[in-house]
């Protein structure tokens, strides 16, 4: 008797399952594309926001190498010129070290200004970016 009830219940459940499945509402054809488009757009926006920071880091490192590379080149020229024109003894004079310090200071200040400039530019871009997004909505 119990078994019969269980079998009846089972078939009742199966019938219910079959019936309820008729109530499924298929999503419109274009919904998938709309969703995927929105997700890809969001992903693109996200990487656009992440990319400048990475690029900025690369820029600063590149500028550092360029500026100080030139500085060492200039110093090398000065040392070579001094050696050939004034001899080895001039390297020990205060005048020579003053020149070296001036050249190093000029290039360092130039590098600092470059860093400050890129920092300010990035700050300005950050301020502008949300405004652009709002306008795009």
């Amino acid at each position: 008797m119990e078994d019969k009830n269980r079998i009846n219940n089972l078939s009742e459940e199966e019938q219910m399952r079959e019936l309820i499945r008729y109530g499924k509402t298929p999503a419109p054809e274009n919904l998938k594309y709309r969703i995927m488009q929105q997700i890809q757009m969001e992903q693109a926006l996200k990487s656009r926001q992440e990319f400048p920071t990475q690029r900025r880091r690369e820029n600063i490192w590149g500028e550092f190498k360029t500026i100080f590379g030139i500085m060492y080149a200039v110093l090398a020229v000065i040392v070579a010129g001094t050696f050939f024109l004034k001899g080895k003894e001039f390297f020990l004079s205060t005048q020579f070290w003053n020149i070296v310090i001036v050249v190093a200071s000029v290039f360092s200040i130039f590098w600092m200004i470059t860093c400050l400039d890129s920092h300010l530019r990035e700050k300005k871009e950050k301020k502008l970016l949300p405004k652009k997004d709002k306008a795009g909505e």
Partner: protein
Amino acid sequence: MDELLCVQQVLSGNTSAFAYFVETYQDMAMTIALRVCENMQDAEDIVQESYLKAFRNLHSFRGDSKFSTWFYRIVYNTAVTHAKVKIWTTDYGKEAEEVPALSDYSPEMRLEESEKKEMVSKILDHMPKGDALLLTLYYMEDHSVKEVAKITGLNESNVKVKLFRARKVFKEMLLNYLRLDRKGCCEEIFMKNGR
């Protein structure tokens, strides 16, 4: 397809792998949203918003439950927030009388597929939202009581009780529908049921 692998692919930057989840679950998501908000346009918006939420929070999916359970919970919450309605009503009115088994009505149930579809949709549309939603979740994709409880935020015993009543209400409405003339008297049947 291994869903966890697919999740990993999306998290590692392969956005197009997310299309698998959209393709697989969009119909059920649409059905859940429609059960809650009863409006096709709103349901589409809810599904779209839910997928975006799922994408943004995919890193928080740990794989403890099925992806479908996790995602349907998002759809359910989004739909409830969007529709601003109370889904779970405690007032059931008078207790439903003993309803005959579905098998007793098998001759009347020999309907065309489109007719069956129309009948079930109409009945579910006229049922209390919570009941229709529970039946949809439980029967449509074979979710267990535990999973239904996870999706809806109800406790398991509550789900069982509500599911029992929902089944009864559904059968009652179905049998009334089949007993009376099927054409054009649907409203009358539902009014008779007091819904």
